[in-house]
């Protein structure tokens, strides 16, 4: 078993650079998720680790071996494709054992490995079927089984849940989490555009944008302490509220009292829905008129429109008596994030006491 280390990895297609110098260290046995919007290069990066894409510059190491020029099959990796990529004309059993058989492994040994993997995934009864006789979830398991049979150091998952329906996606997500526990020490690299998948599965999340790493960290680290406005907005649901700040003032002219040496540089204020609390009339920092109330049972998301026309959202406890078109005041009670004009976080800035509510 071994970890994966990417050092200043670059990839370009002609003049177009799609991966612009990426450094990532994935520890042995870690579950690492690459997340980012489509086109950020996360799949390309995974395929570079797999060996399906060539590396234009930099180094990829698996364990202590540099694998840049190794054939995909010699890297000790196995991949689960988004479309599963099962061979349609082969049975499940042959699908799983195909690679080993073609490489001259004895039939009995292949059989034993396939049976073992099938047992882990509970697909023993499906071994004689063809892929088209399986449901989406079953195909997904076979694809994972094919990876397990190869007994790789590193498992690579390329958006494996995106072809499943919503319910199955949640169930399979749990299965993959369990599997990681079961396969002691297996390193897993997982690509997704869904931040919920990233948050629930990962030991470590790598947020990518435009071929660059935006931030690397544990899920809660990214949630609570994002490095920049992109990560802050990408991680967490509902999305963090951002309000433009100009010269210590909110767009409607209400003053903000900030402390810290960089407080002059603040351009944007970020606050999550659960950090906004309803305040008495005239006591809040932000005011707004309720436009939609989403009742989820355990919480209510109140969407409101500010005087300057922005839609923001606040999380209320269940049973809050809020109706559409109510005018509300909100206090910033939880953690508030500050970003400069480039979107970088300003960690030493803080709210200076409770802001005084006053009409401008």
């Amino acid at each position, binding site marked *: 078993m071994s970890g994966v280390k990417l050092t200043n990895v670059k990839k*370009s*297609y*002609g003049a*177009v650079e*799609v991966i612009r110098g990426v450094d990532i260290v994935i520890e042995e046995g870690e579950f690492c998720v690459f997340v980012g919007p*489509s*086109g950020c290069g996360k*799949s*390309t990066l995974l*395929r570079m680790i797999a060996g399906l*894409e*060539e590396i*234009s510059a930099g180094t990829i190491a698996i364990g202590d071996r540099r694998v840049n020029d190794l054939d995909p099959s010699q890297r000790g990796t196995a991949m689960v494709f988004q479309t599963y990529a099962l061979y349609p004309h082969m049975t499940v059993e042959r699908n799983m054992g195909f690679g080993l058989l073609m490489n001259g492994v004895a039939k009995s040994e292949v059989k034993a490995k396939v049976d073992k993997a099938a047992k882990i995934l509970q697909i023993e009864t499906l071994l004689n079927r063809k892929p088209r006789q399986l449901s989406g979830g079953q195909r997904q398991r076979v694809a994972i089984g094919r990876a397990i049979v190869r007994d790789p150091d590193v498992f690579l998952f390329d958006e494996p849940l995106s072809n499943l329906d919503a319910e199955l996606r949640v169930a399979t997500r749990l299965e993959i989490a369990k599997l990681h526990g079961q396969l002691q020490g297996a390193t897993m690299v997982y690509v997704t555009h869904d931040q919920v998948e990233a948050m629930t599965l990962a030991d470590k999340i790598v947020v990518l944008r435009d071929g660059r790493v935006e931030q690397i960290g544990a899920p809660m680290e990214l949630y609570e302490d994002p490095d920049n406005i992109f990560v802050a907005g990408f991680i967490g649901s509902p999305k963090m509220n951002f309000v433009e700040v100009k010269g210590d003032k909110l767009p409607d002219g209400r003053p903000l009292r900030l402390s810290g040496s960089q407080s002059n540089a603040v351009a944007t204020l970020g606050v999550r829905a659960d950090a906004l609390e309803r305040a008495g009339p005239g006591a809040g920092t932000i005011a707004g008129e309720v436009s939609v109330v989403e009742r989820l049972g355990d919480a209510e998301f109140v969407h409101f429109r500010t005087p300057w026309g922005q839609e923001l959202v606040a999380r209320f406890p269940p049973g809050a008596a809020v109706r559409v078109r109510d005018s509300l005041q909100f206090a910033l009670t939880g953690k508030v994030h500050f970003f400069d004009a480039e979107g970088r976080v300003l960690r030493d800035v803080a709210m200076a006491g409770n802001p005084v509510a006053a009409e401008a």
Partner: protein
Amino acid sequence: MAAISHILERGAEGATLGQRIWKSRIDYLFLIPGMLVFGAFIFWPMIASFYYSTLDWTGFGAHSEFIGLANYAELLNDEFFYSAFKRSFLFMLATVPFQMIVGLMLAIVLNNKFLKLATVFRAMIFLPVVSPVAVIAIVMVLMLSPFNGPINGFLIETHLVSRAVDLLGSPQMVLWTLAGIFVWKWTGITLVYWLAALQTVPDELYEAAKLDGVKTWQVIMHIVLPIVAPFAVVIGLISAISALNVFPLIQATTQGGPFFSSEVMEVYIFRTAFAPSSGQFPRLGYASAAGVIFGLSIMALTILQVIAVRRVRRKEAENV
């Protein structure tokens, strides 16, 4: 994203041409068998035809001499060449419209999805297509024979004619008889083309028309025909080009006779190159020149087809 990266992959790594060729060596290996066949029997003969057409060459193994365009000049004054050329196109004009109309009528009838035996009928109509031309030729020669042939027997018995007609032996009738045989042999394929075209008419249109109380023939005239009309161009040209490829049928049936009255272009080329009348040498260079001229004519026709197909496609794209 993956798709784009795949397209961009070509030449992305900045390797030299030599390196890229070496990297693809397995691909070239895969190509070898196909390219050998292609090169030897398609590409090379194409080039060689042009070269041979400039030679005075009296037979395989015989001495040949370069004479420039003299063969072409001679062709322009060759009665037989002109007649054969004319006959080829006449034959095409005689067969293609019939084949198209008969094929379309059969296709409209057989396209009925409630007609359980449609595939059986289609197979029966298709049988002459798969039958070897040599067999068709010999069966037709016997059936149409003026001496005890069953067709003449039938015609005489029903008093449609008083004396046996020699359909393949009369210079006036032979080309038309051959055209009839040709249409019979190949209509099956036109039928299949039309059936493919009819698949593009959505079922809903029939159903909507039925609910509106439109009569069947009106549906055909106003809905089906306008939709499949664009295909007529393609099907017509495919049929036209195959109608110029009649060598097997004519050689096997009449060998161009009687008195050259069914000698179409290909038979003329064959006779000039391989089976000279007694006392003459085979003239391979001369035959090649005739082949090149006729080949270019067909190529022009094919290019017309491509343009027509493009037009149809564009129209379809606009309609969608």
